[in-house]
């Protein structure tokens, strides 16, 4: 029996060189879909700003009064100013992890099947989803920069550029973590666990709400193991300027430079991405 194949005229078949190109196109469209959906969720975007505002205005004012208007760092930032960059980081953290859960959502609603049967490498799926989630989380976090004048923080073009880069690196690292987790989850039921045992501990240990110096040893160790710590710290120093450097996180008695914090996040993100790729490559 001969196996004559009727060849289709439209689709390019994969050669070695075109395989990389088609994977790049797949990454692009997976990313683009996330951005497109995000752009259609205007009401949701506005609603999701409510939580950071509650932290800043009510929690910030309340705790600031309770601690008698204590000042932080040599520049004498008040508590609200101190947590402002932390709240930007929190927004990025929550949006990244929530965003990655869309993988589980896609699985439950069937769209993931359309993605997984396409003739592309599964790594393109992991990379596309990570970049898509990171873009959303970054924009969501950066939206809070409009509050800077109200908080009394002066931003320059240079510092904004630095903040954008850091916001993206943090969003990338956390989205990669989220996608790596979501790739193994078969239903939304696991999400509660992720929230209570990962997202919230990461947030509370990150130093978004209090300085990470003078803590008991056990907690100092936990805070230094939390990748979000380096993002929050770098974000704080970028937003509040070099005056906030003495507040920086120390490792082995040394204050960690911002570039090293960025490197730690990138390395963590790449590790998580590799894990996500592996999870997606499993076939039944």
């Amino acid at each position, binding site marked *: 029996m001969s196996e004559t194949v009727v060849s289709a005229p439209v689709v390019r078949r*994969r050669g070695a060189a075109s395989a990389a190109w088609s994977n790049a196109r797949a990454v692009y*469209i997976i990313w683009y879909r996330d951005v497109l959906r995000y752009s259609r969720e205007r009401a949701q975007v506005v609603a999701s700003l409510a939580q950071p505002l509650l932290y800043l205005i009510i929690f910030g004012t309340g705790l600031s009064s309770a601690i008698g208007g204590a000042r932080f760092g040599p520049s004498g930032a008040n508590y609200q100013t101190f947590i402002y960059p932390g709240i930007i980081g929190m927004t990025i953290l929550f949006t990244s992890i929530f965003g990655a859960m869309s993988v589980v959502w896609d699985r439950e*609603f*069937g769209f993931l*099947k359309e993605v997984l*049967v396409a*003739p*592309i490498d599964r790594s393109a799926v992991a990379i596309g989803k990570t970049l898509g989630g990171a873009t959303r989380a970054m924009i969501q976090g950066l939206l809070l920069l409009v509050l800077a004048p109200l908080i009394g923080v002066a931003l320059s073009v240079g510092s904004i550029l630095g903040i954008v880069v850091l916001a993206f690196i943090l969003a990338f690292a956390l989205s990669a973590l989220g996608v790596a987790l979501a790739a193994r989850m078969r239903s939304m039921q696991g999400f509660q666990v992720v929230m209570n045992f990962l997202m919230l501990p990461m947030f509370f240990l990150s130093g978004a709400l209090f300085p990470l110096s003078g803590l008991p040893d056990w907690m100092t160790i936990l805070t230094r193991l939390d990748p979000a710590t380096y993002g929050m710290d770098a974000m704080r120093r970028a937003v509040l300027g070099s005056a906030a450097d003495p507040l920086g996180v120390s490792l082995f008695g040394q204050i960690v430079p911002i570039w090293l914090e960025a490197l730690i996040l990138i390395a963590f993100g790449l590790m998580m991405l590799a894990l996500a790729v592996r999870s997606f490559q499993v076939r039944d």
Partner: protein
Amino acid sequence: MDQPVAIAAEGLVKKFGEIEAVKGIDLSVRTGEIFGFLGPNGAGKSTTINILCTLMKATAGNAAVAGVDVERDPAGVRSRIGLVFQDPSLDQQLTARENLEFHAFMYNVPAAVRGQRIAEVLEMVDLADRANSIVMTFSGGMRRRLEIARGILHTPTVLFLDEPTIGLDPQTRRHIWSYLEALRDREKITIFMTTHYMDEAEYCDRIAIIDHGSIVGLGTPDELKATVGGDVVTITTADNHAAATELSERFQLAPMVDNGTLRVEVDDGAVFVPRLVRELSVPVESVAFRRPSLDDVFLKLTGRAIREEEAGPKDMLRMMGRAWGGRR
């Protein structure tokens, strides 16, 4: 004869732990035919289709789709096939066109022909005027049509459809079928589909009946019906009881009393009916005969009827999901 083969499978086996879902299936589907895979839920239909689509690995056996081995080159197979899944798989927040654009990128449809091809497939399923509507606003039938359009967008050699009409109303189902037939003629595509609707299997060129993981019957609908033999005659009389006795004693038949009617199977209904009316002593009130249906074939091959009630709880959920649209 040099008949091109679109799907070839030999000795396919799939085990889930101790359970053997597919027990050695051999298949040969010709290019350009509509091939139906018929069987009750849990017979192994979806498992087989998943192996052929490279979504699952077979425990044993081998298969080639469009001449490409599913084990050795899954990506090669995937670029040559189109898929319409049992469960909806559209992004309902996007428009019809955006869903197709996503697919075009994933399947590497060149930019030069992308727009034209998208317009073409939308036209084919009568959705050109709804190209820019969000899928959420679509009815179940429209979503199905869009999924079929998406399935053929990248000009696959073989289109797989897993229960393409489940949960749709009869009129929409007929509609979908007319699209599929037009498609086969226009695109010269091979269509491989599973269904548990007997009436739909009639549209197929050939059918394989699968039960408990094995193929128990294979052929054209007419060939399969011929295996039942003869015609099914339904009779109502003034006294069914007396008529039944007479049918078995004088006509040597095995009548079945069913809902106030008598059913018998005979070799040739056209010859039997006049003789019956002439010779039966009980007055005949009505008589009809028909060719055996695929239901009769299924009953004969598996000893069970395939019915709507076979739809399990998951199918009920699916149907409700279709009916209500389901927010997403």
